[in-house]
């Protein structure tokens, strides 16, 4: 078996046994990127030199008998939404195409400290807004299982690079399903932790009250390893939970006794693809065979989740993205051209005696804002900024934003009630498998419905994981979603590991020519 086909856990075993060096491992993945990424397009930037340097440093310390971190020289890919010091961080946007942060995100710093080798930055929907990575302004990512299909999103590159064996571990972010949905589409394991479990410092905000960083990997065991490295309280993030972080990599292997699993009635209704439903029901049977008891639970407000999400997330986004105005950094329009254009407009108004036109003309500052943002931001980002600006406006705030906050509380209460009866909620990650590139580009609403089963976890702040549970007749992966009460990531990982011990869906790899 070649190095790139091994899990991070197995690579670590070989590394610590001295059977292989981090430089060899890193080089193997760099080679795979070199050969496979032309087709997949998972990476926006590959940091070959610094990765090999970092790997060599780990090797020399290991050789000298000095301590080596938890990730021990295993490569990790980072979604290009997290700041990496001295390395361009684009959010897949023209706006930040040349942005080089002077600091690391806390998660990136922790990965460095744990001796994870930073191999590159992965593609995504612009500012994480989207579910197919088609909204990237900087490149196209394909699903490694079928290059005509999308990898999902917004962490599409993060999922695709693991599926195509270009990185054993990868960091994604999840605001409404952006880790779990691409994990499902690409047949990998992706965990969205409880809100507050992982620091958001240095994560470029989309919707601050929903965003959460999480691990993507081949197995639950590997996800546990990476989560252990990145989780924990951070004084730089006031919303990070001040609780001790468990050693997930130690506990993931312990099977759960008397596991009570709940099936959400509302997740098996209209819109669910029959093949996906059948596969998910088979997966539930696997849990039954492992001794779990299955019962029905209800999340009655789940039907409002999408609507609630598409008010709260754009509202916060409209404010978070206000800083991209061309004043302090980021894209600024061509000023000379802009000033000339304004002068021409003014002249035209004057000549035609259009008093009102003159009165309503932009000042040069306003035009600079307007034009820089028009040029630097893509259509989906603009759509959400406009939506959010509207829902926060005077006269609409109560009807939209405030009401959405109330529904959000009800959604959380649904979970609290359900989790009195069951340990975990299990169901499909998405209503269907990965769709063809371009199939939903003109229909944002049907794209939004992809988040039907995943957004509630973000609104409620609970954790969720997607693991591979089968394939469609067309050969596309199907994801099984598990959700747990707040801060119960250990349970999510243990239950996922149990499933992966009993099945081999997670071991299948796409064949790239």
């Amino acid at each position, binding site marked *: 078996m070649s190095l790139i086909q091994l899990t991070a856990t197995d690579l670590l075993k070989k590394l610590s046994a001295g059977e292989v060096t981090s430089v060899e491992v890193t080089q193997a993945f760099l080679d795979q990127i070199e050969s496979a990424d032309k087709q997949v397009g998972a990476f926006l930037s590959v940091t070959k030199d610094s990765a090999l340097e970092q790997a060599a440093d780990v090797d020399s310390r290991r050789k000298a008998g000095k301590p080596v971190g938890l990730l021990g020289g295993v490569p990790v890919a980072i979604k290009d939404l*997290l*700041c990496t010091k001295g390395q361009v*961080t684009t*959010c897949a946007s023209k706006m*930040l195409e040349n*942005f080089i*942060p*002077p*600091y690391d*995100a806390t998660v990136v710093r922790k990965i460095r400290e744990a001796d994870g080798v930073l191999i590159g930055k992965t593609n995504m929907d612009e500012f994480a807004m989207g579910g197919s990575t088609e909204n990237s302004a900087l490149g196209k990512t394909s699903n490694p299982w079928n290059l005509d299909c999308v990898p999902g999103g917004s962490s599409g590159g993060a999922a695709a690079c693991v599926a195509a064996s270009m990185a054993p571990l990868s960091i994604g972010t999840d605001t409404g399903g952006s880790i779990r949905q691409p994990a499902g589409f690409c047949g990998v394991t992706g965990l969205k932790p409880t809100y507050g479990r992982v620091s*958001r*410092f*240095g*994560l*470029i*905000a989309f*919707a*601050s*009250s929903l965003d959460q960083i999480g691990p993507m990997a081949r197995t639950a065991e590997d996800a546990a390893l990476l989560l252990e490295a990145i989780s924990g309280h951070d*004084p*730089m*993030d*006031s*919303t990070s939970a001040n609780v001790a972080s468990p050693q997930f990599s130690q506990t993931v292997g312990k099977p759960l006794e008397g596991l009570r699993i709940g099936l959400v009635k509302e997740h098996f209704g209209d819109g669910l693809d029959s093949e996906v439903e059948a596969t998910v029901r088979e997966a539930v049977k696997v849990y039954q065979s492992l001794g779990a008891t299955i019962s029905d639970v209800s999340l009655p407000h789940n039907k409002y989740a999408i609507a609630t999400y598409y008010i709260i997330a754009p*509202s*916060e986004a*409209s*404010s978070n*993205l*206000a*800083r991209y*105005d061309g*004043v*302090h*950094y980021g894209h600024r329009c061509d000023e000379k051209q802009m000033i000339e254009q304004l002068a021409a407009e003014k002249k035209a108004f004057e000549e035609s005696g259009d008093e009102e036109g003159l009165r309503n003309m932009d*000042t*040069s*500052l*306003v035009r600079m*804002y307007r034009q820089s943002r028009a040029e630097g931001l893509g259509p989906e980002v603009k759509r959400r900024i406009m939506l959010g*600006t509207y829902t*926060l*406006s*005077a006269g609409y*705030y109560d009807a939209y*934003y405030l009401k959405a906050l109330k529904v959000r509380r009800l959604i959380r209460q649904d979970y609290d009630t359900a989790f009195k009866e069951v340990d975990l909620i299990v169901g499909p990650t998405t209503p269907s498998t990965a769709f063809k590139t371009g199939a939903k580009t003109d229909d944002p609403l049907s794209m939004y419905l992809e988040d039907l089963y995943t957004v509630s976890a973000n609104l409620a702040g609970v954790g969720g994981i997607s693991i591979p549970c089968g394939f469609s007749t067309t050969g596309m992966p199907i994801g099984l979603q598990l959700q747990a009460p707040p801060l119960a990531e250990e349970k999510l990982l243990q239950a996922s590991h149990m499933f992966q011990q009993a099945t081999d869906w997670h071991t299948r790899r796409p064949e790239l020519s």
Partner: protein
Amino acid sequence: MSESLPYKIVIGLEVHVQLATKTKLFCRCSTEYGNAPNTQTCPVCLAMPGAMPVMNREAFQLGMRTACALDLQIPLFTKWDRKNYYYPDLPKGYQISQFDLPMSEKGTLYISDPKGRFEPKDVGIIRAHLEEDAGKSMHDEANGKADSRIDLNRCGTPLLEIVSEPDMSSPEEAKAYLEELKLILSYLGVSDCNMQEGSLRVDANINLHIETKNGKIATPIVEIKNMNSFRAVERALHYEAPRQYDIWQETGGVIGEISKETRGWDDSAQVTRAQREKEDMSDYRYFPEPDLAPVTVTEAQIAEVKASLSELPQQIRKRLQADYKISEYDAEVIVNQGQATVDYYEALVSKVNDGKLAANWITQGVLRILKEQQIEIDAFPITTDRLADLLSAVQNKEIDTTRAKDVFEKLLESETSVADMMKEMGIEKVDDSAIDSLCRELLEANPKVVADLKAGKQQAVGSLIGQAKKKNPNIDPGSFRKLCLEIVQSM
């Protein structure tokens, strides 16, 4: 023009105070004033993507101190909100402020005027909330350019916004409110209140309630900005009230029909002028700040802050009047100078045991010098010990008040003791027999004066005092006068 109708002026004030923390409200950058532009910045206050705010507890603590001093109620739960607007000196595109759940509300501030220009009153305070300051824009329009430069050193400095009820009914009351507020803030040590450096900023809302034949009407509210001193506030309000009356006479526009207007005070022209509203400033799209946890406070913490408050100006004024039997006016003058002057006064009184005498010397002597030399009391060259020695000499009639003032002036320029200085100036107590003989000598030489005195014209003794002082400058005029009259009476 119709006859003038009686109207009442209604004034409310919004004061922004920079809190005297070492570091900014949401990052650890220094708040020091006057350094090179953009040298006190970091990813947080530059609004770099991914940076997150972390609240400065010290700022919240200073806010609580102020709230307690203004009798504001502090709720146990308060949160942060985003106020969204675009401006180049606001790099995030929003300001972190407090909207519907401020850190304190419903307080009062007592104002009075020892000169009696208005009745003392409690001015209501609606709320005081914390927010971050913006940066500074500098518009460089020299050489036909229209460049703007941004300094973000100030961006993120903690501000306390204190909003009064519209309880003031004259520019004098408004000025008194501001002066008392400033005094309280400086006694608390929560702000340096330097208006020139922008650490205290005032906006005023003003309108008129006019008595017409058909009942009372209110004119539209005008907000006045750009006032750089309390004097400017007073003048702007004096200008604005009759202007509003005239506009109402012309247009008949009343509140509700015409929306609030913002006007700027032009100090050189001494007028207010309509200001162009900033683009899209009307709707700030407030919503709860998702990057910061709400702040919770306990009753015990509030009690602790209250217990830690030192004596406030109005309490000190009352105490000085009661303890040292000084006038309301003197107490006002001393207390308004600040804690250091009160300390100086109390130290002096404890040495000379005469509150009135000490107050006179401070209000007429010490404060005059401070003003002339533009110095603070801490830098005043005459210590309370030396001044007490001088006052004791006066009390013991070793020196008269006029000469004591000469000594006082000399003491300013040297560190010599009072005794040495008096010696140096040839000042010594003249013994009674010397006064007696000088008295008799002069009476003998001035029979006309003796005659006048006998006729009851007591003021005639003045010319003798003048002559006596020439012969011996150390003569105490009071003693001399008294003795002269006694001798003449016994003649």
